[in-house]
């Protein structure tokens, strides 16, 4: 069996003196859709940031296709095929929509159909109407679309979506779930963090519930549905 696309082992990390992750462990296999769930402030985003090298882990390992990458600068990790849709959009405000898409475009998943500006615009027609507008002038939802498009344009092997549907209209959310489904069918690995649990259940293979910086529950969709207590126990206040 080949190594998983991403595996996180006993990861610890934090901000300055305050530790946030206390031994995170999970894995995403190639072509698999995995979710991280958890209440606000439990460390989901911190996990993503640490995986991407934006935060320096204090312990544990991050492996991409079997190779340890912890401690490497973010661009190295990204170049291995990780595409990030960050929390809070973080589009480049002074670049136009088109520039936002092409500036960091790359081909990190050889063999698959490449994302282009045109195919992104096909997915989000709204962006087509705003092509020459600056990222900072877009509405919140438009920025969110742009952030997704920007990550797709790096043609990643593993797509990481941190609250990527925040602020999107219901109909667009559906588009995205559909698109992720297609990507999954093409063999793309996907890590999703999202509050729309019900939509995720239809899409994802496996789920991890995060609490206080570690995984407290894991299982596939069927066992998630079966274990009604999960939501009560970990996702409610």
């Amino acid at each position, binding site marked *: 069996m080949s190594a998983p696309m991403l595996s996180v082992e006993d990861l610890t990390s934090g901000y300055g003196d305050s530790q946030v992750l206390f031994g995170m462990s999970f894995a995403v296999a190639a072509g698999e859709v995995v979710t991280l769930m958890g209440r606000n402030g439990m460390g989901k985003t911190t996990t993503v940031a640490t995986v991407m090298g934006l935060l320096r882990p204090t312990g544990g390992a991050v492996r991409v296709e079997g190779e340890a990458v912890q401690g490497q600068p973010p661009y190295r990790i990204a170049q291995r095929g990780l595409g990030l849709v960050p929390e809070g959009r973080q589009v480049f405000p002074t670049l136009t929509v088109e520039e936002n898409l092409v500036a960091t475009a790359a081909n990190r998943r050889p063999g698959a159909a490449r994302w282009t500006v045109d195919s992104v615009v096909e997915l989000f027609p*709204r962006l087509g109407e705003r092509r020459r507008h600056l990222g900072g002038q877009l509405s919140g939802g438009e920025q969110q679309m742009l952030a997704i498009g920007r990550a797709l344009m790096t043609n990643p092997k593993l797509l990481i979506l941190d609250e990527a549907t925040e602020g999107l*209209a219901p109909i667009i959310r559906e588009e995205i779930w559909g698109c992720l489904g297609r990507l999954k069918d093409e063999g793309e690995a996907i890590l999703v963090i999202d509050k729309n649990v019900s939509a995720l259940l239809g899409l994802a293979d496996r789920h991890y519930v995060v609490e206080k910086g570690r995984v407290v529950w894991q299982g596939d969709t069927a066992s998630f549905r079966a274990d009604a207590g999960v939501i009560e126990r970990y996702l409610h*206040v």
Partner: protein
Amino acid sequence: MAEPILVLEGLCKAYGALTVTDNLSMAVQAGSIHALIGPNGAGKTTLIGQVSGQIAPDAGRIRFAGRDVTDLPMHARCRRGLARSFQITTILPRFTALENVAVAAQAHDGHSFRFLRPAAAEARLNDAAMQALETVGLGDRAAIRAGALSHGEKRQLEIAIALVMKPTLLLLDEPMAGTGHEESERLVATLEALRGSLTILLVEHDMDAVFALADRISVLVYGRVIAEGAPDEIRADPEVRSAYLGEEGAP
């Protein structure tokens, strides 16, 4: 029926060739929860911006509580009881969560040209702030630097700031966005509890929340209100379904 608390008449706003608010008129009844929904980029945030005074409309009038406030700056409108939250989190990152809320309380508690007394020791401000934080579930995070809160917590803080001002009209721009499932539920409960004591204009893409809370819904598309009515009417409207709701609207 009494005059609506907020009346928009012929509001227009364009950015270059892009018309974002297109001769828009609408009214919000005092004491109601009025939801404003619509596709991304329809002009909801821009409308909130114009009502709150952040963005100047190109044409049209805004009446709030019986007075024309079109030419008042944002801070003056706020002092008349009009508060808002921001879709894109707007907080004071190096202030603690408590201070973020306390400074908002301060704005509505006498004047701030006081140069010598330490503000941090003013119990009245801190108490009000603490109460607001507890309402949104951030009570145990009061002493944390706001910049170090998680995204969802920042969203909650945003609401606490708006609440502490005890506004008569509260403009909420996607308050549920970024908050987790259960935090959203808590917020719905909070707003439900406020029903009647103030007016809320709610912009939100979370349809569960909208249908649970709204007395009335306006649907904005390309800067125009294409439909307005009670939740059930809107849910059933085919045009709204195709432009915005998709499957999610299905009963």
